[in-house]
């Protein structure tokens, strides 16, 4: 890059000199010698930048380290500083003798090109709503998956990362919230180099740009697939010139964050007794003995009375990851190339269990490769050929039938169940005699010890080729091109299911002897006796394969021409078709799309912009005929106010544009069923078994769901109004959009029909949802001497509203879901916990609730939840639940990026925040000792549960804020209510980096290094949230628990040759 920069910068300097010749000659003044340096926004020197005296041919090129010395005629002299890839800047000398000039990257400016649907445009002429992201941000972030970089970087995008599991840690992306009835039906279309491909197959180092298309003007051309927004990723290509080699390497440690914590053995034992006492159990065998409780407190017998924190025993504190990439680009006039190879490794957080001979940890290995080639076949013919692939290996431990290890370790395991590893062998349980009767002994590795592992190898190979023929010989500006792609994917999953394994139980000698001695008896023999059981462990082997293959073709004619210097015209006509083999339903029938795209743009003097586009395409999901194909038109206009003559007088306004768009887009993925028009038929559904003995039975047939011949796409009417401006010599940047979407014909199965008809009904285009919101991006960048800074902030707000969903008419208005946003919850309103003063004892000695209070359907006791009687009928039951809370995707997302640079040092902070988001804890998290009554106790209950002052086992806490320990009443206390609905708003320092770039020097020159950077990066560094139980982004709805999110600390090295 630097080579080329030097080359062109010099050329630019010469050009400037030539142009300057006809300017006014500087008046004779006392000449001054000015020193200075030219740096970029990161504070790095811009080598070879041209510095000229405005209006003259006098000029120099900046040095290796970006410095220059120039003699100017006087203080009124103006320096013009330019370099390729940067915006030319003018500086008045004034009193300065040492000048720092900061050049802005021209990708940040209005002249930069941005990728739009099926083409590119300059930022200045864009009339739709789209945002693109700087590829530097993608490379710097120490994450495996591109989806995790998007958060906070650009307005209009929200992401939710639910798990940190290696290879599975991608985030869900929503563009402008959710416009349909279900979140799963609101996922955007993702195109990589113009072909639908998953984002996680691309190494961030390969990405040139990433655009998010949001409004109808940008997405209507995608027709039935565009309604949820589109993400377009373009990969890098080579530039003519000497080979340029970039090497980057990031290595770091991952540290899990926000474990769900369990209490100590001492608390577990005491509160277990309170729990038994609360439920009126009288059998002393069901309680921990006072001696046992004391042993837990003092730790006097850590083998029989252990205090095991399972996550400390099983999880590492830190584990490595590394991400490396090398790419080479260059070429000649005829051939250009970009070749990249990447390797990534992420380790998992589990410790190796000593006894287990296979690797029982998670891990992810990924190799990426890509070659993007450009050929100039003839003077008018270009060919692009891309080949890329990913080879990934995801490894994960298996768990036997009972859910997964997260649930066991975080929720189920008891601190009292096992002392961990004794004499190199895991102890599965301490003796049954040491614990209360009937307490199931859960230990963290119960179902994971010798359960085996699964290793998934996945290879993808993607190829695409484009040939473009310029047809200027027919008419100026006309071209035609043909594109094809062929993608394949092959996966092999090897599963080694384990069984067997040795276990030991630790007993006291007297228990083994069945002596019947009481523990307080002096003769009681406390010698530990390990009792080993189990069998030789074995690993079975099985494998399964999964193939996928798809192709895409596209033929297009482009026309682009400028008439009379002011009339810019462009037009596009495109046909495309795709086919995806082995879809999940009707696997033998490939899934196909066909479509036409048309677009025409016109601009007058870069001031008035008009863009009309349309997509016409069909989906096999709909019946042949009029419901299969849809026309999706859109139009947008722009007015670049700053190009008007009257605005030229306002020097501080650099750029000002107003935009508006409206259009239709479709979605055919509702209810994700194929061939929705197909009529149900009778199919065999098993048998019924007459006869006395085992027999084959009589087959039985069932009638399928009837088809709906009229079923068609969902239609989104989208409109958008935007304003962009740059002020104060581009120091201040603003971009804002307001949008409104009205989606109709959302595919749902009718809800309001009697269930007694006992037949399923087809999808119908019934649902209607409105979605509206705004996005604002505001940035300021400047420099103070050599210190450069660039601070920007963005906010996205999106709220949807259900207009129609065939909801059954609710009994009470507050139970109506229609009219509110999707994804909310039906909740009881928690008022407080019942206190003893709410009860009286009746003449039969039964404790009864004060009759003045609303009566719950369940029998309640002090310390249970009191909910509000919304219906006012004096009874608290299911009628008293209301739709409440925010959805579990945030309505507001904020991002802020701070960049500071000083002489090669740079500091970058990326903040992200979200609010108007609710999580309702999974029922497992709401129940002390969980729903079986015999599992772990979360620290939040140990700290906050209501405890009766009269109980004999633990100090009372009648001001507790969480319900009491009870088995009989947990169903009442754990119902979906506002008590368990948590505001999961958060503020997070998503990433921070601090680095230094060594400028070019003699040693580097000898080594051929043009730049070398060293950087420390952290990811997910700091989080502020009211959600204390777990990370605010992690899934609260899963009973099986989740691999925790991780924070990472990294060091990275970037070298360019």
């Amino acid at each position, binding site marked *: 890059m630097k080579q080329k920069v030097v080359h062109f910068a010099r050329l630019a300097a010469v050009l400037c000199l030539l142009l300057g010749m006809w300017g006014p000659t500087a008046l004779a003044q006392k000449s001054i010698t000015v020193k200075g340096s030219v740096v970029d926004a990161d504070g790095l020197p811009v080598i070879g930048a041209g510095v000229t005296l405005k209006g003259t041919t006098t000029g120099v090129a900046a040095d290796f380290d970006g410095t220059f010395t120039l003699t100017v005629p006087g203080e009124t002299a103006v320096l013009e500083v330019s370099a390729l890839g940067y915006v030319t800047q003018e500086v008045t000398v004034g009193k300065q003798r040492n000048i720092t000039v900061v050049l802005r990257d021209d990708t940040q400016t209005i002249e930069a090109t941005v990728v739009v649907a099926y083409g590119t445009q300059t930022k200045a002429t864009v009339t739709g709503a789209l945002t693109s992201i700087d590829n530097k941000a993608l490379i710097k972030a120490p994450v495996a998956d591109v989806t995790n970089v998007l958060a906070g970087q650009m307005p209009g995008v929200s992401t939710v990362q639910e798990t940190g599991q290696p290879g599975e840690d991608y985030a869900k992306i929503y563009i402008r919230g959710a416009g349909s009835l279900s979140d799963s039906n609101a996922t955007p279309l993702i195109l990589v180099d113009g072909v639908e491909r998953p984002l996680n197959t691309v190494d961030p180092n390969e990405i040139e740009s990433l655009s998010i298309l949001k409004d109808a003007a940008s997405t209507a051309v995608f027709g039935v697939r565009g309604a949820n927004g589109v993400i377009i990723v373009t990969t890098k290509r080579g530039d003519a010139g000497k080979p340029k080699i970039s090497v980057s390497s990031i290595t770091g440690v991952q540290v899990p964050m926000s474990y769900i914590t369990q209490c100590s053995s001492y608390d577990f034992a005491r509160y277990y007794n309170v729990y038994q006492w609360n439920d*009126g159990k009288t059998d002393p065998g069901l309680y921990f003995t006072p001696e046992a409780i004391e042993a837990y407190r003092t730790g006097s017998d850590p083998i029989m009375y252990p205090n095991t924190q399972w996550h400390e025993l099983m999880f590492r504190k830190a584990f490595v990851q590394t991400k490396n990439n090398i790419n080479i680009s260059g070429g000649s006039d005829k051939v250009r190339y970009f070749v990249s190879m990447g390797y990534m490794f992420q380790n998992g957080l589990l410790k190796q269990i000593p006894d287990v001979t296979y690797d029982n940890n998670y891990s992810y290995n990924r190799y990426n490769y890509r070659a993007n080639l450009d050929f100039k*076949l003839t003077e008018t013919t270009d060919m692009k050929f891309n080949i890329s692939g990913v080879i990934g290996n995801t490894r994960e431990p298996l768990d036997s039938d009972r859910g997964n290890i997260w649930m066991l370790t975080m929720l189920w395991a008891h601190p009292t169940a096992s002392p961990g590893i004794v004499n190199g062998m895991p102890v599965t349980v301490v003796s049954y005699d040491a614990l209360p009767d009937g307490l199931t002994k859960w230990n963290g590795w119960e179902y994971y010890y010798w359960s085996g592992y699964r290793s998934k190898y996945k290879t993808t190979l993607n190829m695409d080729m484009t040939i473009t023929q310029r047809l200027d010989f027919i008419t100026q500006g006309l071209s035609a091109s043909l594109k094809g792609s062929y993608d394949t994917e092959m996966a092999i999953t090897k599963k080694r299911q384990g069984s067997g394994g040795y276990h030991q139980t630790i007993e006291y000698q007297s228990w083994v002897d069945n002596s019947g001695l009481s523990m307080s008896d002096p003769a009681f023999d406390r010698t530990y006796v390990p009792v080993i059981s189990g069998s030789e462990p074995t690993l079975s082997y099985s494998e399964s394969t999964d193939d996928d293959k798809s192709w895409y073709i596209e033929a297009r004619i482009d026309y682009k021409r400028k008439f009379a210097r002011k009339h810019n015209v462009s037009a596009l006509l495109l046909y495309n078709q795709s086919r995806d083999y082995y879809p999940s339903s*009707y696997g033998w029938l490939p899934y*196909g799309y066909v479509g036409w795209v048309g677009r025409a743009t016109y601009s007058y003097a870069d001031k008035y912009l008009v863009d009309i586009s349309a997509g016409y395409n069909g989906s096999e999901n709909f019946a042949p005929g009029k419901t299969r194909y849809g026309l999706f038109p859109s139009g947008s206009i722009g007015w670049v106010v700053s190009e008007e003559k009257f605005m030229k007088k306002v020097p501080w306004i650099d750029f000002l544009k107003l935009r508006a768009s409206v259009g239709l887009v479709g979605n055919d993925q509702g209810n994700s069923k194929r061939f929705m028009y197909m009529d149900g038929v*009778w199919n065999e559904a098993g048998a019924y078994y007459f*006869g006395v*003995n085992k027999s084959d039975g009589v087959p039985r047939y069932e*009638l399928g769901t009837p088809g709906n011949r009229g079923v068609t796409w969902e239609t989104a009417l989208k409109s958008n109004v935007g304003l962009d401006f740059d002020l104060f010599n581009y120091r201040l940047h603003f971009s804002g959009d307001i949008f409104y979407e009205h989606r109709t014909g959302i595919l749902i199965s009718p809800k309001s029909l009697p269930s007694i008809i006992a037949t399923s009904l087809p999808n119908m285009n019934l649902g209607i949802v409105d979605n509206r919101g705004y996005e604002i991006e505001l940035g300021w960048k400047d420099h103070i001497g050599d210190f450069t800074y660039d601070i920007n902030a963005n906010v996205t707000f999106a709220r949807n509203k259900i207009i129609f969903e065939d909801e059954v008419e609710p009994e009470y208005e507050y139970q109506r879901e229609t009219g509110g946003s999707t994804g909310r919850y039906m909740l009881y309103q928690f008022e407080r916990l019942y206190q003893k003063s709410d009860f009286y004892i009746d003449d039969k000695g039964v404790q009864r609730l004060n009759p003045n209070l609303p009566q719950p*359907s369940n029998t309640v006791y002090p310390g249970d939840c009191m909910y509000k009687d919304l219906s006012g009928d004096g009874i608290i039951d*299911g009628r008293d639940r209301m739709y409440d809370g925010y959805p579990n995707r945030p309505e507001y997302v904020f991002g802020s990026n701070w960049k500071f640079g000083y002489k090669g040092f740079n500091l970058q902070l990326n903040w992200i925040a979200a609010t108007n988001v609710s999580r309702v804890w999974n029922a497992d998290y709401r129940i002390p000792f969980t729903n079986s009554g015999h599992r772990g106790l979360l620290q939040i209950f140990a700290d906050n549960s209501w405890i009766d002052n009269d109980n004999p086992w633990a100090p009372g806490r009648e001001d507790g804020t969480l319900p009491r320990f009870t088995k009989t009443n947990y169903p009442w206390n754990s119902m979906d209510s506002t008590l368990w609905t948590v505001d999961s708003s958060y503020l997070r320092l998503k990433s921070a980096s601090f680095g230094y770039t060594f400028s070019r020097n003699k040693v580097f020159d000898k080594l051929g290094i043009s730049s070398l950077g060293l950087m420390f990066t952290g990811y997910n560094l700091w989080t502020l949230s009211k959600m204390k139980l777990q990370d605010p982004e992690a899934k609260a709805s899963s009973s099986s628990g989740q691999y925790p999110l991780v924070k990472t600390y990294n060091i990275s090295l970037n070298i360019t040759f």
Partner: protein
Amino acid sequence: MKKHLQILSIALLGAGLVACESLKLGDAGLSKAPETSGATVDTLFATIKDADKVLTSAYYYLPYGLISDFDSKMGGDFLESITDHFISNKHSDSDGPNNLYYSGGLSANLTGSYAGGENYRFGSEKDYTAIRYAWLFLENADRIPNVDAAELARKKGEAKVCMAIAYANMLRYLGGVPILDHAVQADEEMKYPRATFAETVDFIVKLCDEAAPDLPWTVPAAENGRMTRAAALGLKLRILCFAASPTFNSDTKWHPQADQYTCYGNYSADRWAAAKAAADEFMKEQLSNGGYALEQATIAEPLKGIQPRDYRLAYRKGYIDRSSSESIISIRKTNSTSWYDKAFELQQSYGSGASLNWVNKFPWANGEAFPEDFPWEDKASWPEHPFFKPDPNGTLKVNNNTFTETRDPRLYENVCVPGDIWRDGSVGKGYDNHKYHQDGCPGFLMMKFVMQQNSDRSLPPHWCMMRFAEVLLNAAEAYNEADGGPSDKAYSYVNAVRNRVGLPNLPEGMTKEEFRNALILERELEFGFEEVRWFDMVRWGLKEAFTTPLKGLTSFGDNNNAATVFTFKEKIAYPSRPSWENSFDTKWYLAPIPQVEIQKNYGMTQNPGW
């Protein structure tokens, strides 16, 4: 030109790359809908053999009482667990008995994980699916060409009995329900008003009456399980007894809000008379055709004569064996014996069990009542060991052949008492110091469907929905109620059931009420886990069965793995049923209708108290 050819060839190469498959452009590029691989109404109703495959779907969706994947009633628990016989200690958030019944949490507005834990969830159970397939069969049966009229009539009769069973199931849980007289099409106007209690009863009776003449009284072994005339008439008798019972057939409403949909609203002796007529009808057929009989004990060891164990096996055959001569209505959704394992898993993992209240009702083997205040802790004062005759050393041998049961043999088949062997020949795990004892187990595990040995579960399973023993007791009840007291015939029916397990006849000269109570007790002993007790509690309004605190028995064995000597102590069972014990409301007799079904406004109404 040469250049252009070059370009063209490259372009073709590119196209070739992506389209190795034949490339079809335009609409032809979209996949065609797959050819339908299934059958149409025309192909299915071409022969009676194929049409039968529609009828089997009606059979398949009939109620099933075993815990299974077919029916998650009670959140995967037995209906018995909301009677005074059994305590569920399952405690997961999908468990019905604890979450909804003992705690009182049931409401018409259940959603999420608690929904489905009810004993009957209107709109979610499969009765209307069975009815739909029965109608699809009936509506299309006449299309079958060249069919034997008698055979066709018989199949139609089977469809009607299936439908009657589905409605009868709903009647017992819900009262009157909408009656569908056709298979609903998606495009019709969806108005289905709720039928009254009387109309629903009449409709069930009508279906049985229509079906009966066309059905055979018994079927050969290969057709075992098909609906018979005995099934139609037995069902009719059961429903008429249910409807004539005092909860529904009374001048006093069973609940202040009880309406025409949930009771008759008055008392009429005719209803018992109708039940008696149905009993007569069944017994007349039985007399002339025979075919049904109680399974009788066979002497295993001739030298010893008949042993308690022989009675036990006869009783077992009655409920477990498809070929049993007692089986009147039998549902068989699977051949896999693993469905029986679910009964075992229920307690293996969760510590549910039978109550001492129920166990105490089983008399001594000689028919004498077992005292409710039995001195469990005072071995010396026992007239006999409460469960087994110990050997001279005082131990109970873990061996079938040396067990000598001291109580009504049916106790042991229903309940695993301390010392009995269970499931795989090992000692039952119900006693308190067994190492797998579960917190909360009342001391008695469930034996029915689990049985003593793995080999006991080798037969293909069925849900015996109605046994001949129930017909006998229903008939005895109808005679007693209609005649104002027990006749000889009524006595003979009950005594047949008692004698089969070696119990003596009931004392003679009982009043109508005494005989009624004896019948209710006999049904408790005979039909454990067979979905009889709950409906008896409901129809007779047995409030004390809801509100009595349940007891268990703490038993300590001499070994924590295979005990043979036990000490006992009575205990309060856990969990208790606070919402019933402290403030019982008769609303519990019928299930709530999910409010959402009422809000759909097609004609369903809410049940009293919900």
